């Protein structure tokens, strides 16, 4: 049942006054204090919050949910919440996997999905998008008009543009198109205590520190993004699909390092370790038991041919043709496992990290070795999903069943702790693209060192009362 605390919180007088004020200003249709809405916004896709839901526990409830429809609405919300000291949790698609939208201190969740304008600036190769615009909606509309933005995260269908910017997300085609940080050219933000700022989408600008970067990855802790301008590309004219089976992970990783060093940029590269190769390519006899790599090269015809030549020259492994790539393309959005296994009591999660080439294989081994021996763990595996001339992103997956005398959350945190420590000890960074949220905040100090104090100081300056997503990222 819903905890009694829920009712207590709901009656907190001061918060209710702010909610009343916002209701008067925005109208009833844009705000709700109905229990069903509060429960629906008590979680995101953080496994811990899903676990709460399955156990009928709702420890983090907001007092209200707000659906602004314009920048003006957002400004009113920030202004009155700041005045009344009411926490705000910006919410996009709720596909974040680290609890970054979980309203742990009560207050209001501000869902941006009704702010979803879209305008293509053809000559400037820019798209102007409302922050709540759905990711697929944007990319499909661009494709229809002959463009691509090239940001295709696996969460393309549920996530929003504002979520992408706020978590510093990136997509499956990032090795060519880059992450969202490479695409964001301009941004409009509403910041405490209710003001706004707009950094215009110039081709380039040298006007002091690049403040767009301040908001990239700020996870709702510095303000609310209302609009962004992003780089777009004409739709690629050519697509080449390549795949390889290698004997070892080292061979495949080393091959891609060389490819990147040569300057080739296949849009998609994914290397699966042996476990994940078996998991994804179980009906490909020639690949089973090996290390599979799939690649998509796309863009200008001549450039793609040159890239293909480089890849073929450098790759250590047997070429497997386009079929495994088609299989990957067809199944890449089949997100089923959490829904199938978590209700059966399986503890399941993914952890994405990055590391420079020189330490890549050590990090892979150290993380797997740290997770696997933990009692209850069924498997720990990884694929490498994003690549740079300097290094690589490893995306680990683990699953387990809680050992007797342990609680599921405790078991989950034990695995995370082991993984995070192994990453830091191996010289990697604790997150490549999911961000920090509430799950990774305890490692921020270790990750950033002195720079964490700088981040805290910026937060203090912009949001003295700490109303913006309090507690997230430890801020």
């Amino acid at each position: 049942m819903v905890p009694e605390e829920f009712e207590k919180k709901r009656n907190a007088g001061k918060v209710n006054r702010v909610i009343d004020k916002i209701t008067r200003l925005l109208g009833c249709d844009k705000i709700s204090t109905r229990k069903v809405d509060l429960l629906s916004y008590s979680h995101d896709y953080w496994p811990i919050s899903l676990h709460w839901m399955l156990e009928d526990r709702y420890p983090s409830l907001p007092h209200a949910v707000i659906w602004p429809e314009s920048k003006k609405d957002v400004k009113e919300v920030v202004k009155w919440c700041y005045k009344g000291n009411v926490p705000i949790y910006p919410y996009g698609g709720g596909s974040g996997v680290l609890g970054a939208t979980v309203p742990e201190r009560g207050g209001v969740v501000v869902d941006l999905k009704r702010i979803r304008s879209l305008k293509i600036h053809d000559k400037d190769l820019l798209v102007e998008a409302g922050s709540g615009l759905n990711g697929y909606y944007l990319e499909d509309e661009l494709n229809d008009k002959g463009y691509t933005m090239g940001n295709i995260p696996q969460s393309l269908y549920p996530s929003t543009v504002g979520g992408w910017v706020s978590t510093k997300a990136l997509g499956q085609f990032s090795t060519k198109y880059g992450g969202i940080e490479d695409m964001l050219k301009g941004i409009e933000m509403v910041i405490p205590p209710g003001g706004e700022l707009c950094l215009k989408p110039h081709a380039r600008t040298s006007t002091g520190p690049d403040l767009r970067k301040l908001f990239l990855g700020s996870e709702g802790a510095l303000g609310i993004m209302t609009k962004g301008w992003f780089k777009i590309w004409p739709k690629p004219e050519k697509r080449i699909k390549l795949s390889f089976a290698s004997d070892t992970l080292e061979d495949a990783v080393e091959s891609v390092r060389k490819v990147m060093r040569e300057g080739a940029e296949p849009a998609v590269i994914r290397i699966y370790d042996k476990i994940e190769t078996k998991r994804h390519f179980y009906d490909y006899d020639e690949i089973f038991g090996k290390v599979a790599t799939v690649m998509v090269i796309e863009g200008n015809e001549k450039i793609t041919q040159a890239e293909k030549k480089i890849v073929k020259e450098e790759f250590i492994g047997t070429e497997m043709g386009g079929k495994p790539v088609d299989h990957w393309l067809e199944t890449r959005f089949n997100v089923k496992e959490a829904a199938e296994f978590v209700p059966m009591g399986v503890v399941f999660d993914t952890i994405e990290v990055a590391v420079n080439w020189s330490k890549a294989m050590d990090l892979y081994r150290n993380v797997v070795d740290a997770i696997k021996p933990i009692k209850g763990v069924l498997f720990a595996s990884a694929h490498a999903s994003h690549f740079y001339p300097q290094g690589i992103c490893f995306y680990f997956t683990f699953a387990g069943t809680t050992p007797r005398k342990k609680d599921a959350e405790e078991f989950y945190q034990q695995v995370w702790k082991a993984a995070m420590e192994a990453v830091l000890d191996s010289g990697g960074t604790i997150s490549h693209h999911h961000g920090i949220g509430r799950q990774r905040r305890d490692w921020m100090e270790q990750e950033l060192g002195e720079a964490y104090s700088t981040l805290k100081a910026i937060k203090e300056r912009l949001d003295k009362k700490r109303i913006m997503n309090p507690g997230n990222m430890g801020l």
Partner: protein
Amino acid sequence: MPGKWDWLKDEMGGVSKITKFSTVMKFLKGRVSGPDDMTKCAMCPNMCRHACPISIVDGKETTSPAGKSRVGMMVDHDVLPMDEENLYPMLMCLSCGCCERWCPFDFSVSDILRAEKEKGVEEGVIFEEFQEMFDNLGNYGLVQGEIKKKKSYPNQGDVLYLRGCEFRGDDEKVIGKTMGAFEKLGLDAFVLSDEECCGIPAYNAGNTQLFKKLARKMAKRINDSGAEKVITSCPSCAYAYRKLYPEFGLDIDVEVLHIVEYLEQKKDILGKKKGTVTFHDPCKLVNGLENKKGMKDVLEKIGLNVKVPRRSGEKTFCCGYGGSTVCRLNEYLSSKISEERLDELSSLSDKIITSCPTCKKAFEENGNLKVYDIGELLYELL
């Protein structure tokens, strides 16, 4: 060739037996079925959100596809009571099936939530807005209530034309034109003077008893009509007769086709007049009747220059009035969805064709353009 889960069984082979381990193993071996569908949907990160017209336009988690299942789960688990406030989000569903096309489990949320909707009705949680519809269906067999003036059409022939509630109650002219088009196509068409609703509005609102009552009547009347073939203007009617009735043990003995499906079968239907049009594929045609290609080919066959919308065929987007519940409980949202769709269509052509009476109504009520049903379009072009 290794099986889907062999890799996991291999990995688990080395793990000592622990709590819940055996359930997982049994699942992997296919001995237990795993979580129920509503729980699976509730645990999904909304992998069909982008296709759900409600979710795109309403923007609320509570009414998103997985969100609705989560509400269902909360009601099932007694976290929330079954009352109007909590049934309401589950009824914010157009029954369009647009989610199914993208769902890794092939779920349609409207099916997933059927049991909850039925439970609502059984427990007496009936919205005022539905009561009138239920009464009209029960008393007159028509969603809108009693028809004052009835036009007469032939009541014998080879092909039974079932007009559907929307045209019978609100748009009589289209019936005349569709019958005219059938004549031009050489069909000996007739209507049932005692046609009633197929029952789908009751089904959508969770009133399965009323649906069954109407279905029994209509199945008998169709089977007794002597028709060789049935053609409908409304894809929901065709869906009910062809797909739903058999699920309730009621078989229609003759072939039932929606008008677009009938035209698809015809080789040569070249129209005399040309022009540029765009079209709206009704959800029930594409998702319900699984006519994935939609209307494009048929319109091209008539000789029209067809502008294809981004959201067409299996990527179609509901008109906003589908599913009988949203347009009754939240007219504003239905209109917003219609407007969203109309913006897309009217940017392509000012002549919009559809093949569903409800879609036509939605667009004409929410925009300034005349929207043609394919029956009346044919009548004008042939």
